[in-house]
């Protein structure tokens, strides 16, 4: 039996996306004109639009609130401390298309996550190699995600890593955060493939498949702490890129807190016995 191979989704600037046709791609839009172009006349392969630097433009969000197409949007904040309150501008557009918010681990992250949660917007947090200050924000954001009952929409990467800790195979952070070159191929303005979070001229390592596997193997061979890390599988060296010398002490605490929550969920699920399943399957009277 042959395994179906999905081509990677290309993530590329709007101008380069015009030639994609029905190949799967994400167009990066940075102006109202680009946004409107793809909303009004999307190519068949367009999966979603990555919207950058446009939260300050109210008119763009009026356009996005039109229901000409239901192309999903991934709205990227570059400075959450300054931009978080602009999320209110997405309210109308949310009614006509799926919208996700992507937020870097930076000052203001928790504010942006709180407001996104209040607006029922799913979130993708890009941790990169977080500084001490960013780690504090990540810890606060994680506590909010794990314990605030009003949170409905997923906050990635917490959500999928938590699922991973509960025996669901959600892949590694590279996949969860759409940075695995085998599944998501990022291109720069010159059309060159890039590994996310790097800008140097030598990008040859992603021209072959298996970047993440090779990266982790290399780290282990070099004696990095990944070799004995209990969260090697969900991480796969994510936090050791691009700087392999990055200390994972802080991110391990993050994983530990997610693991603890995962353990609690597993215990709850385990207490849900086979007998309970039988009881639930019995017909019962409606209750108020």
């Amino acid at each position, binding site marked *: 039996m042959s395994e179906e191979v999905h081509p990677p989704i290309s993530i590329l600037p709007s101008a380069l996306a015009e030639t994609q046709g029905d190949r799967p791609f994400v167009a990066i839009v940075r102006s109202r004109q680009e946004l409107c172009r793809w909303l009004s006349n999307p190519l068949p392969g367009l999966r979603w639009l990555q919207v950058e630097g446009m939260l300050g433009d109210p008119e763009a969000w009026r356009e996005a*609130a039109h229901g000409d197409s239901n192309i999903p949007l991934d709205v990227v904040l570059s400075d959450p401390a300054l931009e978080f309150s602009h999320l*209110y501008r997405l309210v109308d557009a949310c009614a006509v298309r799926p919208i996700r918010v992507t937020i870097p681990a930076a000052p203001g992250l928790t504010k942006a996550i709180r407001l996104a949660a209040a607006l029922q917007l799913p979130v993708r947090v890009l941790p990169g190699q977080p500084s001490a200050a960013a780690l504090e924000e990540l810890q606060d954001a994680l506590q909010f995600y794990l314990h605030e009952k009003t949170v409905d929409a997923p906050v990635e990467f917490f959500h999928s890593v938590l699922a991973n800790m509960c025996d669901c195979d959600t892949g590694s952070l590279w996949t969860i955060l759409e940075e695995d070159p085998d599944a998501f191929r990022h291109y720069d303005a010159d059309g060159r493939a890039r590994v996310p979070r790097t800008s140097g001229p030598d990008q040859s390592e992603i021209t072959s498949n298996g970047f993440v596997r090779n990266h982790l193997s290399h780290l282990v061979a070099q004696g990095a702490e990944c070799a004995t890390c209990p969260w090697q599988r969900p991480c796969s060296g994510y936090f050791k890129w691009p700087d392999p010398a990055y200390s994972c002490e802080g991110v391990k605490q993050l994983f530990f807190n997610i693991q603890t929550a995962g353990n609690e969920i597993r215990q709850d699920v385990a207490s849900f016995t086979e007998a309970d399943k039988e009881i639930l399957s019995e017909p019962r009277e409606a209750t*108020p």
Partner: protein
Amino acid sequence: MSERVFSVILLPTSDCNVACDYCFEHKEPHRLSLVLVPLLTRRLLDHIENENIEECEIYWQGGEVMIMGPAWFEDARKIMDRAAAERGRRFVHYLQTNLIGYSPAWNRVIRGMFNNSLGTSMDYPNIHRKLFKGGAAAYTELWSRKLHEAQAAGIAVGVIAVLHKGSLEVGPERFYRYFTSELGLSNFQVNTPFPGGPAHEVEGGFQLESIELAEFMVGLFDIWIAEGYSSGVSVAPFDALIDHFTGEQARLPCIWKENCSNQFISVDAKGTVAQCDCWVTSYPEYFFGNMFQEPDLTGMLKTSRARREFVERPKRLVEDEDCLSCRYLSICHGGCPVRTYSALGTMMAKDPYCEVYKTVFACAEAHAGEILRARAAPIISLRERHTVGDPCVVT
């Protein structure tokens, strides 16, 4: 086409047939001429077409709408619905009236245009709603008679009650019994009062102390849960809050929307456009423009400096107030601009009833928790029985 709905609070007249103490509206005899209805309709349809919205809700109120007479509504409906159908759009009409002018002559239009339902208002005790002759007692008597006539005609009637000091004095139990037992209603809504309109001695007395108001609201919530929730009585906004906290789709009132400026406007008989009826009747400094003088409603809403404040308000509140750290932000968003403006002279602050709302939200959350536990109780009970009866299970 978008699933968004655009709503218009349409005041075909600001004239009124009663003399309530706390009315914030400038009562003017001006009435919307049928000659202008096609133009009004065209402007609204142009706008929802620009916004790619299929449906426009029209909330007819005044002033007092029944002053216009049923024949006027029949004609207005024909003009509006025909024009909408020609453009593949739809108007849905709702009626809010004081009922004083109700007679069986209205039944046909209420059935045909308003889905055989209407909204009206009454307080308990009624101290402030008055007829020009006869005062509050006569108002209550006449209104009650009209209510029963409408109910007898098969019209579904919902009642809005504005709380005042007298309501707090009689307490939530008598208040609840009045609407359910005495009036036989199964659907009513409680609104918090606010001193709308120009400064006015009587109106100034309508702002209630938060602690007393919160206690009343919680008491009323408790009674409704104990007696009404399971027996089909709907009390807004409590029912929507229970929906929200039990994970159901909830239709929360406009005061707790993400941003009311996104969802509705109000238009008066002269074509004045403002955020809602409170603004269009009371605060000229916040008019967005005039629909009969400006050809493009979409453009007006986009460029109005007055409207920009409404649009920016929730954003400012999460920056400047403590709303962002409130666990109820998702169901409040800083509350109502007009309640804030009328109390504080600015809308760039959170609703002065913030503490009341938080108390009510916490009460709703607690009741919803009990409801969810009650729903699970048969499973837990069965589980215990299975466990006791199963010798393999060590307890």
